[in-house]
């Protein structure tokens, strides 16, 4: 299975600090969803894990499906998705703000959410803006609104970055 993986600059895993090699298989000793294992994203999962670098990763052996990730016993980085950079990250955050703006048009009761997102966007990471936008949608539309915004975010990323529907 081909999937995606966000890493910090220098191919550093955000939680373990592991420096990923390119092209070599990395084995995990156990494969418990969200425990030890090789963690990666389907396209729909991408907005939840936005970091500095996006990589395409090949996963091997059995794969466990988590709510917002997949976990495999082994994986190897195949190539970096160069299209994901600081500029596109800013574009992505702006698109999130625009969707909240459209959501709140003609709805004075929801304008506070727009104000929050607009105020935070210049100072926050793309991941933070994405979360704020999804919560604004949830506050306005209920739980379905959260999912609607997260789906829109993953669709934006897939289109802008030219991703194939890995793991979909």
């Amino acid at each position: 299975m081909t999937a995606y993986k966000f890493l910090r600059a220098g191919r550093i895993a955000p939680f373990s600090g592991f420096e990923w090699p390119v092209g070599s298989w990395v084995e995990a000793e156990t494969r418990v969803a969200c425990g030890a294992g090789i963690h990666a994203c389907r396209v729909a999962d991408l907005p939840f894990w936005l970091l500095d670098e996006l990589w395409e990763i090949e996963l091997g052996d059995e794969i466990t499906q988590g709510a917002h990730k997949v976990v495999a016993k082994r994986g190897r980085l195949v190539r970096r998705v160069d299209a994901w950079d600081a500029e596109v990250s800013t574009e992505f955050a702006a698109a999130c703000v625009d969707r909240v703006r459209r959501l709140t048009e003609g709805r004075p009761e929801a304008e506070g959410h727009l104000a929050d997102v607009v105020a935070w966007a210049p100072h926050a990471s793309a991941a933070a803006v994405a979360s704020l936008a999804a919560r604004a949608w949830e506050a306005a539309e209920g739980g379905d609104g959260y999912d609607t915004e997260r789906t829109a975010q993953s669709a934006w990323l897939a289109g802008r970055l030219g991703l194939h529907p890995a793991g979909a």
Partner: protein
Amino acid sequence: MASELSCRELVELVTEYVEGTLPGDELERFEQHLVYCGPCATHVEQMRETIRVTGSLREADLDAAVADGLLEAFRGWRDGRS
């Protein structure tokens, strides 16, 4: 449906996180929060660093006055005095 942790919820779970005992679904929500919340990520790093530093202390490393103060504080906590 949203299932994001609040910062307050994360702080309540941080001990289990650094000890590696959070169940899978909570661990996923915990780490998702760390991706977008810089202050909480810093808090977790500080906890890890504190554990790393204090984990290397031996009883003999403690100054006697500090040891007495800690013992008094713990006794007070148990007795509801602090």
